[in-house]
């Protein structure tokens, strides 16, 4: 299946070309190579997808090469093309291509674009390994690979220490999750003798599993979930995602909205048959997901940096997806993954356009009124906001409500309640973002100050400065992809219209064959198949729409013309609440004090004592000893050749005598 190999290798080729050859080439060449590679990959992906559909969506595996084969451990480099991976590869390559096109415009001020596009293409390659792999090892290769690329791209402007630190934080926190993932792999191999998805599915679907295996599955799923927590930014390992906003915005869009962070959800869906057999773990997953959704949403309420709002929003939405997995509704989780990829990428790219227009100002309180300067960006951003808050008939409505419904029937009103409150917060902060950025008066106050500082310049320069300060719309290479994403955000929802509203929920039907509830667990998950009263479902839907409208309305009132005065009073009256929220519940500080600092202190101690005194002492000691011996003996070197020869002869005689005596 050549199309498959083309799809997989095109990004790698693009990365290699950019990384190895195009260092001195003009930026446009790097951009074209990268976009070209992505387009080729996307086209190939479409071909593979259509081919798969023609085969009735039956899973097909393709071997690249034999990789690991030691003892009983067999992990070939095999790819699986089935409904789930087909969907993922379209998302990765499709949205990836759009972001690559956008990135050319965004990064046009950069001098090292070749490096950027190398990493970006490499990322796509790794992500494809992750989603197309047929066994845990190939997935892990992709898992680590995207972590690496994420690090490289977050810390892209590494000359600033903060950016480099953010990259490191992402990598290290991910690593902690990866330990869990690795343990999951180890346990899987130990108890099942294989790490291949196809084989595991057969084994678990086929027959009765003894208690040992069932117990093991509980631990395996838990370990794997720890990995998902790291990669998909759930509590408590989400802390890297907000800091990752230090990277260029296209990176945030691609990696931290549309693809990498969804890896955890993908992994759980891939192994759904295992997770179904571990109700305890699923409970934990659901709770973690719901709590993350709410937790992050509350933090987003008071953030002033536009990218941070979007970052916490991502964490929150990922919480929704994880919640869906936790209640066994994997199809709903993947559906939300899909819609979220569209509108979150859209909003990140939109934010990028805004940031570029505002000359890299990211504080929303310094924006405002951009609607009249950037009409296209405003329009597409509006679509994105409507999608995420769940305004029917945009995509977010269908996917989010699907999750909330499944959460209700699977986890009860409490879980639903958490999700609903989080949804309310989501509506509030997203509308707040929209208002602060696009409506009201342009508060380019920062530029005003800038203005005053330059007052001493000649009048002519003064004028030029002022014309520069007014933001203007970005070029079509930047809003083009946004428009496409907006159309998708608007329309994609119709793939998943639930039955209760008269639709066929094509999405759920499409993914159904991937999901398999093993016999042993059927009874626990019966509620997924049962039928419920339509009025209940519609009632919940109405409730969530009402919450959305109320929250959005509140936000419009408070922020429609710029921040209302009453907000200042609230801030003053509840200072501690505000501070806690705006400082992200002091989680980072907590981690720093209790984890990072002790590690650092230990390392410092080890260095100052063990390394300097003991190790260096030993090494230097040897050197000192040599010097000492040499010094004490060197007087023997008289420089006389004869003396040397004499010693030589005497030594030779000794040697010979030893030989002879033996």
């Amino acid at each position, binding site marked *: 299946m050549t199309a498959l190999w083309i799809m997989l290798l095109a990004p790698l080729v693009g990365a290699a070309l950019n990384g190895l050859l195009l260092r001195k080439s003009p930026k446009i060449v790097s951009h074209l190579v990268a976009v070209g590679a992505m387009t080729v990959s996307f086209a190939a992906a479409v071909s593979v997808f259509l081919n798969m559909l023609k085969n009735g969506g039956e899973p097909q595996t393709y071997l690249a090469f034999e990789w690991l084969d030691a003892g009983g451990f067999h992990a070939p480099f095999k790819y699986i093309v089935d409904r789930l991976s087909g969907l993922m590869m379209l998302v990765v390559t499709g949205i990836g291509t759009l972001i690559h096109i956008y990135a050319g415009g965004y990064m046009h001020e950069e001098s090292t674009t070749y490096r950027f596009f190398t990493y970006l293409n490499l990322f796509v390659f790794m992500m494809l390994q992750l989603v197309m792999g047929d066994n845990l090892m190939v997935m892990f290769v992709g898992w680590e690979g995207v972590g690496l690329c994420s690090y490289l791209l977050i810390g892209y402007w590494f000359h600033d220490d903060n950016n480099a630190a953010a990259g490191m934080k992402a990598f290290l926190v991910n690593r902690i999750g990866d330990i869990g993932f690795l343990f999951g792999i180890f346990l899987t191999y130990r108890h099942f003798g294989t790490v291949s998805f196809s084989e595991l599915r057969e084994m678990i679907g086929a027959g009765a599993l003894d208690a040992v295996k069932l117990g093991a599955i509980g631990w395996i799923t838990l370990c794997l979930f720890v990995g998902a927590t790291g990669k998909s930014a759930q509590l408590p390992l989400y802390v890297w995602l907000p800091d990752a906003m230090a990277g260029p915005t296209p990176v945030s869009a691609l990696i931290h909205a549309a693809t990498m962070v969804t890896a955890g959800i993908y992994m759980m869906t891939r192994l759904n048959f295992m997770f179904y057999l571990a109700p305890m773990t699923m409970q934990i997953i659901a709770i973690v997901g719901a709590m993350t959704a709410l937790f992050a949403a509350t933090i987003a309420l008071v953030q002033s940096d536009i990218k941070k709002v979007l970052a916490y929003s991502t964490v929150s939405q990922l919480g929704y997806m994880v919640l869906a997995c936790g209640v066994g509704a994997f199809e709903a989780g993947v559906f939300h993954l899909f819609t979220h990829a569209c509108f979150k990428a859209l909003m990140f790219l939109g934010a990028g356009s805004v940031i570029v227009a505002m000359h890299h100002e990211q504080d929303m309180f310094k924006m405002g009124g951009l609607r009249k300067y950037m009409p296209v960006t405003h329009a597409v951003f509006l679509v994105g906001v409507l999608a995420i808050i769940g305004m029917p008939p945009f995509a977010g409505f269908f996917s989010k409500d699907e999750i909330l419904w499944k959460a209700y029937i699977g986890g009860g009103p409490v879980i639903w309640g958490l999700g609903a409150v989080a949804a309310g917060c989501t509506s509030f902060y997203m509308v707040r973002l929209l208002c602060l950025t696009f409506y009201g008066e342009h508060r380019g106050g920062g530029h005003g100050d800038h203005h005053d500082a330059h007052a001493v310049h000649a009048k002519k320069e003064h004028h030029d400065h002022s014309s520069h300060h007014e933001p203007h719309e970005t070029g079509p290479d930047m809003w083009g992809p946004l428009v496409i994403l907006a159309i998708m955000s608007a329309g994609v929802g119709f793939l998943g219209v639930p039955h209760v509203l008269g639709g066929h929920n094509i999405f759920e039907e499409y993914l159904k064959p991937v999901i398999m509830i093993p016999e042993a667990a059927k009874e626990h998950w019966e509620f997924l198949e049962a039928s419920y009263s339509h009025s209940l479902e519609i009632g919940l839907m109405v409730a969530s729409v009402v919450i959305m409208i109320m929250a959005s309305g509140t936000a419009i009132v408070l922020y429609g013309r710029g921040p209302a005065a009453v907000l200042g009073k609230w801030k003053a009256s509840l200072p501690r609440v505000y501070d806690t929220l705006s400082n992200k519940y002091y989680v980072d500080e907590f981690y720093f004090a209790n984890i990072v600092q002790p590690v650092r202190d230990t390392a410092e101690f080890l260095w100052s004592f063990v390394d300097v005194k003991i190790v260096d002492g030993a090494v230097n000691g040897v050197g000192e000893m040599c010097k000492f011996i040499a010094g004490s003996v060197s007087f023997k070197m008289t*420089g006389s050749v004869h003396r040397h*020869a*004499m010693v030589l002869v005497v030594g030779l005689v000794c040697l010979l005598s030893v030989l002879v005596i033996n």
Partner: protein
Amino acid sequence: MVPVEFYFMLACVIFTLGLFGALFRRNIIMVLMSIELMLNAVNLVFVAAGRSIGNLDGQIMVLFVITVAACEAAVGLAMVIALFRKYGTVNTDILRLLRG
């Protein structure tokens, strides 16, 4: 037939004499000459041993030794000339450059 040990003993004597010269003469050229003497002793051993084993290998070895000795003498003397040009003496008591 002269027993082969006599040849060996003669060679030892020549070798020792050469050794004495190499270690105790103060003129570099004399040192080189003494080394030639030592090489000759070795040649004698080779020839005698080859004779007693019944092989021609000993003599062939000698040919090579003579070749090498000639080369070494040539290069060594060239160095002596260079040294003499630089330092004006061939006295090893004075030429102690490797001191230290």
